């Protein structure tokens, strides 16, 4: 049935479609509606459980523990809450708990501008927790994609045996579009991990060998463990090389944008080529190299001060120009004037 659905509801329904049966959260703008959805849904479906935790630390730990206990689980928050969840995110990578963290970004740092959208938590998904880890992160730009990519994030979590991240922004969370959720086909990968109560395993955040013995002084074991983790994540990520590329033949300029920024600049597709990465992390290195090769100018339009642009520069070994939309200001006219300025040679 076609109806008006918000981004938040689509994310929740996408999780349910993927088989999620546990949600943990703490009220925070702009994802409070997901918690609300969970409460309403659990009243009709006793198999679905939720926890309104005392803080995001507990919410994230509950999500990972639920995953260990055998449920597909997810948590939703925004930037400040995601900062609190970092501890559990790192833990989830070591104990190999597949689950999904939704981060609907708002202007930071700290409380920042709570009702304004931003795209400034990209570095936080990769580098917020201690140590090296390789999360997989997707970023939709429409309500339909919110649904689809949440389900995809659950599948990628099962394949990488780790938490994956679904990014959104305050715009997208509160964006209403007419979609038919029942009509969207998704693939669902079932739980692969044995739940608790099946043996004598130790799920620990300390580095351990295959037998579950803690190995805190052995760098050989640590290296082996980390390469295995990295390999597993990259193999899982390679199955989802998601992007959208709108080429325009006579354009010398490529705009790179994702999430809500890509929606806003989509009306420029008659003048410029547009590349929209959907898998934000790991960075689409191969695809970016192929696409950017034929362009003289590359401009990254994003809601932060060049976080993705720096990743693109690393990936393609070339300087790119930046249009940072800061403080929730995603105005097409302003973006257009900034692009013109970039092209006139006043790079930033």
């Amino acid at each position, binding site marked *: 049935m076609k109806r008006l659905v918000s981004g938040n509801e689509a994310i929740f329904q996408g999780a349910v479609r993927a088989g999620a*049966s*546990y949600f*943990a959260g703490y009220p925070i703008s702009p994802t409070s509606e997901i918690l609300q959805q969970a409460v309403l849904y659990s009243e009709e479906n006793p198999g679905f*459980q939720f*926890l309104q*935790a*005392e*803080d995001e*630390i*507990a919410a994230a*730990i*509950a999500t*990972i*523990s*639920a995953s*260990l*206990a*055998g*449920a597909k689980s997810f948590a939703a928050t925004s930037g400040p809450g995601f900062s609190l969840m970092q*501890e*559990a995110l*790192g*833990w989830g990578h070591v*104990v190999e708990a597949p689950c999904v963290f939704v981060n609907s970004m708002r202007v930071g740092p700290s409380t920042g501008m709570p009702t304004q959208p931003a795209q400034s938590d990209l570095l936080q998904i990769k580098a917020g927790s201690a140590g090296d880890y390789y999360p997989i992160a997707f970023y939709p730009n429409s309500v339909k994609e919110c649904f689809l990519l949440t389900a995809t994030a659950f599948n990628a979590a099962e394949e990488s045996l780790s938490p994956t991240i679904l990014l959104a922004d305050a715009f997208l969370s509160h964006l209403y579009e007419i979609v038919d959720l029942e009509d969207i086909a998704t693939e669902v990968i079932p739980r692969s991990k044995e*739940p*608790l*109560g*099946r*043996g*004598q*395993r*130790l*799920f*620990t*955040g*300390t580095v351990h060998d295959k037998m*579950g*013995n*803690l190995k805190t002084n052995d760098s050989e074991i640590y290296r082996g463990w980390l390469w295995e983790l990295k390999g597993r994540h990259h193999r899982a990520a390679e199955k989802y090389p998601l992007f959208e590329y709108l080429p325009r033949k006579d354009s010398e300029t490529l705009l790179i944008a994702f999430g809500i920024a890509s929606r806003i600049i989509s009306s420029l597709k008659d003048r410029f080529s547009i590349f929209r990465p959907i898998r934000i992390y790991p960075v689409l290195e191969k695809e970016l190299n192929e696409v950017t090769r034929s362009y003289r100018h590359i401009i990254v339009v994003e809601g932060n001060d060049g976080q993705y642009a720096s990743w693109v520069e690393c990936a393609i070994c070339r300087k790119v120009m930046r249009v940072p939309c800061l403080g929730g200001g995603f105005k097409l006219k302003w973006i257009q004037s900034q692009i013109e300025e970039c092209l006139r040679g006043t790079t930033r």
Partner: protein
Amino acid sequence: MDRSYKELLKLRRFPHTWCPGCGIGAVLKNVAMAIKELGWNDKNTVAVSGIGCSGRMSGYMNLDAVHTPHGRALTSAETIKTIRPDLNVIVLSGDGDLASIGGNHLLHTSRRNPNIAVFCNDNEIYGLTGGQAGPTTPKGAKTITSPRGEPNSPLRLGHLLTQQAPYFYARTTVYHLNHFKGCIREALLWKGFSFVDIISDCIELNGRRLGFKTAHQMFKWFDERFHIVEGERDHLRDDELGIARASEEEVIPSAERVEKKPEIPMESLKPFTLEELQRFDGTAGKPIYIAYKGKVYDLSSSPLFQGEKRMRCHIAGKDLTKDIDGAPHGEDLVFKFPVVGRLA
């Protein structure tokens, strides 16, 4: 002596990481014995722990064990119990982990009252990191972060936890062995959140600085500091060992204890038309009546309606069914007033 509890210990990982004389071994052994006695095994029991010397306990048990980040054992255990009510969930951790970094989770998990048993190895010090003052370090005790004596009073877990809804709090020491065993058993059998505060010794990183030569001297010190109290208690004083638990009535969830008022049959009520009802609007000393869902209530005793014709948006002498359903407060505010009739 029955040694079958050893099946529950990962003996292949021994010798363990703890110092000679440490109380954690006694905690691990006695918890394992109690679990064995109750017939629990690796198919129906999960051990959860945090970080610290005592956090290593779960890893030495032949159970599925979860070793969480620092302080998060309770949240983790609660969630596991939510997802898998068929599993018995025990938490083995320490005072620094549960009461300091996990203090917020201790407050809220005990408030939500999941059916888990928590064993807190309370050695009054941060042992693993070298002997810093912890949340339960007694006032005046010298540690490496309080060389002139700890200036603050310790967190009184007994007082804290017995404030919560249906509580089970037991205090015991590793020295009072029979009492200790009894507390563990009672806690495992308790339906709800049970917390056993096991006063334990850390001879290497706490005791020696306090002037004790051996663990045994510390045990003697426990014997001087504490005494066992028998019988049912609802609170424990700071020098008492025993079990404080909520009484029967408090254990029953409050939702089930709500008294139901007997229903008055509608036919026997005096009928009111809307015009008649309008006259009872509180003016000139008349009572204040309102109608809600077909019944007429006397709101004269309401302090909010007193002397006034209306209270905010609710007007006396009217059918307020729609207003109250749309109001931010619930309908229970109306139900406490006497019913005087019904709408004709």
